[in-house]
């Protein structure tokens, strides 16, 4: 009998709740060199036939199925035993399938609280399956109200991306999106190390007056090495080196600040809404090597 057929059968079916169940896997296209096998083929065959007669539940290949299992395991380390509900304090937009796992666009929308509802004071981004799941915490400037923020993050494998908003009453509210991506944390850096050093800390501040909304964008050049990327030359892992804190202020007033880790993409970029008042915008950032980068921009943008 065909050895290729036997291997395809062996790999198409796997243990499931009903014994052997259907499983979406790519077919084995490699041929075997040797047909001998002492596996009980009769038993295998009989189980397969039996499972075919049963109703085949739709099953996903490993890792494709959205699951809260990892979240349940890591939540205590991030939020202790605080209750988290799903009240819609903030919303999250993320692509269902990321084009580039090292640059996954994330949009956060915080609406003006209705009536006397407590305002959101901070939001935390978590990617369950990342080696470093806590992506960043953004603390809003005083005054609450409507705030939109977009940035780019690394997603290492198919995972829930979660946004946990903390309102002024201390309560936590969560929303989530499932993102299909792989390898974001270990993707090689876009710039080579020499380029990255040369541009280190350079910033840009752009104002988008034509969108009809008061939006601006802050960009800072930094490799944000995750520590999981392999240096193509030395063949060793490039040590982690990333922006840890970043604060954007207009005049003396803080617009927002970020506390971030290795899951924030190279050249951290933040697009946000704000109420321009003509004052200069200042950005202060610190990285894990103790470097401090500070730059002020005129209200209408600059670099």
């Amino acid at each position, binding site marked *: 009998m065909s050895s290729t057929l036997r291997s395809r059968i062996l790999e198409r079916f796997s243990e499931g709740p009903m014994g052997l169940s259907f499983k979406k896997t790519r077919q084995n296209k490699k041929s075997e060199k040797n047909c001998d096998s002492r596996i009980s083929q009769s038993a295998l065959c009989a189980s*397969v036939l039996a499972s075919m007669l049963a109703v085949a539940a739709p099953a996903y290949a490993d890792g494709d199925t959205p699951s809260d299992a990892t979240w349940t395991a890591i939540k205590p380390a991030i939020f202790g035993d605080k209750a988290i509900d799903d009240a819609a304090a903030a919303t999250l937009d993320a692509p269902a399938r990321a084009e580039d796992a090292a640059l996954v666009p994330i949009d956060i929308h915080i609406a003006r609280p209705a009536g006397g509802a407590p305002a959101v004071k901070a939001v935390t981004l978590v990617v369950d399956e990342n080696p470093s799941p806590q992506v960043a915490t953004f603390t809003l400037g005083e005054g609450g109200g409507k705030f939109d923020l977009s940035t780019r993050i690394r997603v290492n494998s198919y995972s829930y991306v979660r946004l946990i908003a903390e309102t002024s009453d201390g309560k936590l509210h969560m929303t989530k999106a499932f993102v299909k991506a792989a390898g974001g944390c270990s993707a090689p850096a876009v710039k080579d190390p020499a380029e990255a050093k040369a541009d280190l800390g350079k910033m840009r501040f752009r104002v988008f007056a034509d969108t009809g909304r008061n939006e601006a964008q802050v960009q800072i050049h930094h490799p944000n090495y995750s*520590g999981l990327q392999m240096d193509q030359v030395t063949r060793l892992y490039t040590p982690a080196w990333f922006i840890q804190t970043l604060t954007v202020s207009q005049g003396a007033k803080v617009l927002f600040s970020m506390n971030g880790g290795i899951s924030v993409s190279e050249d951290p970029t933040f697009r946000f809404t704000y109420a321009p008042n003509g004052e200069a915008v200042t950005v202060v950032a610190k990285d894990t090597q103790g470097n401090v980068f500070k730059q002020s921009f005129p209200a209408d943008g600059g670099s």
Partner: protein
Amino acid sequence: MRRRACLALLAAAFALPAVEVWADEAPAEPGGYRLDNYKAPTPRTLRGATVVGTPRAYDLWQAKGIVFIDVLPHPPKPADLPAGTLWRDPPHETIGGAAWLPNVGQGALAATTEDYFKRNLADLTGGDRDKPLLFFCRRDCWMSWNAGKRALGYGYRHIYWYSDGVDGWKAGALPMETVQPRP
């Protein structure tokens, strides 16, 4: 005979042809090692080594006497992470009894990685170049191909390459084990 009847029934049920004819998608063997883009379709062969599928790998596993080596990469927890950063390092599941030598499947190895590979191969074989070694990682991953090729280059004479690796083993519901990397 019972087996043949059973499989014929299955084949009919799936409307599968008795002999599969695939368009040849497997790439040719490169002259040297695969240097990047490791997660991609692999060749059908590794010159100098025996390629095996899951049933044959299971035979070899049951017969014992072969060292199974998992070469799946494992980036270490960065030393520079700020204290208190939550770090997820999920347990590594592999073929039962296999030795895990992470990162030795890269196309080019740093000196320290190469020393690690050579030292562990010597330990695992007791210095016997005739001791059979079986390399694997995951399906469609060049790392086990590279590692097998490199072991051949070191003079180990009996190399097996289990190209479907953990994916094939797990799909066959065969014995798995959680392991730590070898020091």
